[in-house]
């Protein structure tokens, strides 16, 4: 922390002066550029990145207000979590995923859950379409519309218990690493994910592997598998839904 900022926190601790608060917001505002830049990855083109920044600034203000220097946590670490949470909460408040798409996604996930219970593995598109009384092409169109490629799309549905979210991306990326400081919950979540990944179709496993473990873009994964762009979105969405269903049990 440079000298100037340490002095600002000192003054803010003494008296909650609004002008000092504004200087702190200005100093840490670049963190919002980082978080909004990453939460914005994979969003539909209709989402305005400047809006993500303004939602993030709310989260930063909140973090400055609530930060307790005595707790020994670095402010940046605390702030990044709050900024990310604020952007996702605000996105949900403005219904960034249309309700019709959201309710359709829920129906598809309920059908996946039923079929996974029935057969102990991820359903094929044909089995899932039949369960939903849809044509396979209708199901695939619906899946192609639900790009699960952004942190917000993956993050928001995994509200567990008292509001703590399971970041699916981090958990998947960490699946292959054994973290020393892993919590019991994280270890349990990973075990569930491993159990489910082996029950996905061969192709779904490959998509998850290349996207989450090998860090490719969806377009690159599609190229490797030799499938069209909309097809790769569908396979990815269905694979992620199967994982989410497992985690929500």
């Amino acid at each position, binding site marked *: 922390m*440079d000298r100037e900022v340490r002095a600002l926190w000192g003054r803010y601790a003494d008296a909650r002066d609004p002008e000092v608060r504004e200087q702190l917001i200005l100093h840490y*505002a670049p*963190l919002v550029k*980082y978080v909004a830049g*990453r939460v914005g990855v994979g969003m539909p083109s209709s989402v305005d990145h400047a809006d*993500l920044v303004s939602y993030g600034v709310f989260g930063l203000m909140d973090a400055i207000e609530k930060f307790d220097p005595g707790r020994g946590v670095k402010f940046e670490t605390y702030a990044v979590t709050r900024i990310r949470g604020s952007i996702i909460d605000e996105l949900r408040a403005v219904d960034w995923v249309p309700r019709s798409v959201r309710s359709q996604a829920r129906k598809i996930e309920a059908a996946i859950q039923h079929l996974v219970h029935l057969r102990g593995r991820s359903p094929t598109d044909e089995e899932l379409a039949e369960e939903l009384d849809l044509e396979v092409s209708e199901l695939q169109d619906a899946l192609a519309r639900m790009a699960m490629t952004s942190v917000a799309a993956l993050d928001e549905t995994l509200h567990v218990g008292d509001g703590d979210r399971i970041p699916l991306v981090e958990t998947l*990326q960490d699946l292959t690493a054994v973290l020393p400081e892993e919590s019991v919950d994280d270890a349990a979540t990973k075990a569930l994910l491993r159990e489910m990944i082996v029950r996905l179709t061969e192709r779904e*496993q490959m998509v998850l*592997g290349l996207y989450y473990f090998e*860090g490719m873009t969806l377009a690159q994964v599609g190229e490797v598998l030799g499938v069209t762009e909309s097809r790769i979105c569908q396979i990815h969405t269905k694979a992620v839904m199967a994982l989410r269903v497992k985690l929500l049990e």
Partner: protein
Amino acid sequence: NEQVRRARAECEREEAGVSYARRVLQGRIDLLRVELERRHEGGHDLTTLLADLPRILASDQYPSDPLQARAVNVSVPEAAEVLEAEIDEIVDRAGLDDLGGRDADDLAQLIEELATYERYLSGLRRQLFERIDMLRDELVQRYKDGRASVGDLL
């Protein structure tokens, strides 16, 4: 496979730190540039700067495309600490005491130094991407011919 993955994980760990420090530094440079502009125009009002944050901090973003998406996580990487310390040193060396009292020439000088460091970080980042993408392509080749699979990761 293990060896290739480990080499790539090490590069990604470093890249996470460089990308974080780079984005935060870019934000800082852009804010200081707006402040310098306002200084020349004679006005200096913090509150309007805050109202303009979305425009300033999202300046280089264009509409995203889910197909170009990559799995990202949002955290403060440990590898960023060293870089952040170097950036703090540049700011401390500029010897400016607070936001309001900076002399315009000193501010312009600081911005130039930070912009030089940002170009250095962007260059480092490009090199890391090249290496990461090369190691990844090697692994993907092994996926294709069956020498690697998701199963061996679980």
